[in-house]
């Protein structure tokens, strides 16, 4: 073959390969930029709320975090009231939602006949699809009167009379308040916790369960002594996932909390939460008041971020176990 004829060839395939490589690089770059946007969204949310709340977060740090006097007229912003309300309502929600979610997961994965599982599981998950504003309306117009008429008088009359814990259930049956908000939150997070629990229960190896049954265990013993220890970290992850939801929920609790900045021992009294303070006041707030509300948003973001991070780490440990 003549050596000089080689460079004379058009080399279309080479050009094409170069073009493809260039396009591949550009394509990859675009994709990467989009993926980095997700990172940026979280960083941005933290940075912008930190920036927006800088006046209060850095100027009055101590006052903001340790006092409970929230008075826009006198320009005093102590965040203990909302922080207290957020924590207490979320704790009530978790305390109520965890056993119920566990029961639902147990029912769906071990007890229910197979034809019943999918419809019931779908129905429970629909609870998560209902917009939170609907929970808020239902809470305000239906559940608050229900609590005031039927539940709270009975609580005051029974638990309210006990020593020590009685103080928690003392007070007029307003219907509005920390306890009602906690219950509404519990209903909202049940589908999240129960679907995680149900999912992780399904990862328990059948031979482990069958061995336990073969040794004569009852269904409950298999669930409590075999399945729960096997899935412990993921179950805790699911609970933290629910907690993260409860901490940040806004519309469902705004209507039923009663919007009071006082910290009171009784769960029947009105309170406020970080998210509901922001929702209620932000559009009327100016200056330091607005900065204080954005600072509250920053606090909420940091706390939920940590809780959700723990949740995901716990859940991830299980998926690794699954892989092995």
């Amino acid at each position: 073959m003549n050596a000089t004829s080689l460079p004379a060839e058009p080399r279309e395939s080479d050009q094409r390969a170069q073009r493809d490589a260039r396009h591949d690089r550009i394509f990859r770059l675009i994709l990467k930029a989009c993926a980095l946007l997700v990172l940026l969204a979280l960083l941005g949310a933290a940075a912008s709320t930190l920036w927006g709340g800088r006046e209060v977060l850095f100027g009055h740090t101590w006052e903001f975090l340790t006092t409970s006097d929230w008075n826009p007229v006198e320009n005093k912003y102590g965040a203990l009231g909302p922080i207290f309300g957020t924590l207490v309502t979320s704790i009530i929600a978790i305390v109520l939602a965890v056993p119920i979610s566990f029961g639902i997961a147990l029912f769906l994965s071990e007890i229910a006949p197979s034809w019943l599982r999918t419809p019931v599981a779908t129905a429970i998950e629909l609870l998560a699809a209902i917009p939170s504003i609907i929970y808020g309306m239902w809470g305000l117009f239906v559940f608050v009167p229900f609590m005031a008429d039927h539940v709270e008088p009975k609580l005051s009359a029974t638990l309210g009379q006990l020593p020590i814990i009685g103080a928690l259930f003392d007070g007029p049956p307003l219907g509005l308040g920390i306890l009602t908000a906690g219950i509404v939150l519990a209903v909202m997070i049940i589908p999240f916790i129960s679907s995680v629990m149900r999912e992780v229960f399904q990862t328990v190896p059948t031979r482990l369960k069958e061995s336990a049954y073969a040794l004569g265990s009852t269904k409950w013993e298999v669930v409590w002594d075999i399945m729960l220890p096997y899935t412990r970290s993921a179950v805790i992850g699911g609970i933290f996932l629910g907690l993260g939801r409860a901490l940040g929920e806004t519309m469902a609790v705004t209507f039923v909390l009663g919007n009071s900045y006082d910290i009171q021992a009784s769960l029947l009294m009105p309170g406020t939460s970080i998210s509901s303070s922001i929702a209620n006041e932000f559009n009327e707030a100016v200056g330091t008041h607005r900065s204080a509300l954005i600072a509250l948003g920053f606090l909420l973001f940091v706390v939920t971020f940590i809780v959700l991070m723990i949740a995901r780490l716990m859940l991830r440990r299980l998926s690794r176990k699954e892989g092995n």
Partner: protein
Amino acid sequence: MSAIYRRRYATNIIALTLSGIATLIGLTFLAWILWITISRGISAVGVPLFTKITAYADQGGLANAIVGSMLIDLMAILICAPIGVLAGTYLAEYARRTKLGSVIRFLNDILLSAPSIVLGLFVYVIVVLPMTSITNGSVSFSAFAGAVALALIGLPVIVRTTDEMLQLVPGTLREAALSLGIPQWKLTVQVLMRASGSGIATGVLLALARLAGETAPLLFTAFGNNYMAYGLLDKMASLPVSIYQYTNDPNPAMHAIAWAGALLITLFVLALSLLTRLFFARKKVNHD
């Protein structure tokens, strides 16, 4: 039967009964909330709801809120769908096992359950405030800002479903295409995305269902408007925010309209999520 057997048997029966009761409690709340929404909403649904605007509340209309919601939701989807699909593709095709990929996947899962009100504040600080100062206050709250806030809520849903759906595509498909000499971007766009097209579309619908019911991020981004507005930079009414305002109103007639709006949103969101569930039932992928 000895005492210990009897006790174990009894514990078992009690525990199983309690778990049945727990399920009933969950279902009761669902039925309760749906029943209230339907029974109270249906009575206020009528022609005026779709033709009159909220400026004249006594006429019982939500027309501007319905139009506003549709526009804002559509804009939000147009923002988050392309970004989400591309980001999900990056995770599945280029960063399946890399460190950056797992970090983004992890943070995406956190964004999925991040408090929506904080995302609203975020958009307020990065969109509403700059716009106010650039235009000297003639533009402040805007439909665009609302759409960005909602896009942030839909984004992680789309990223996650796209990522999962693409990972389901069998590797042989990739190898077959690459062995023909197809560049990777063509493989991704013309083979993989087509193969998982219905799954990705489901993710977008899921995101729509998720963001359509959100109220908190709209309060201080799109704000609200008692009149019909179509402009990208106008304050715009939306169904959730109008419901919120009407619920806060002491007048019971307003509450009736609020319930009608609540019924519309709930039907829309539940229909969407049931629809996507049907898709997903075939795909068998987790999507919490």
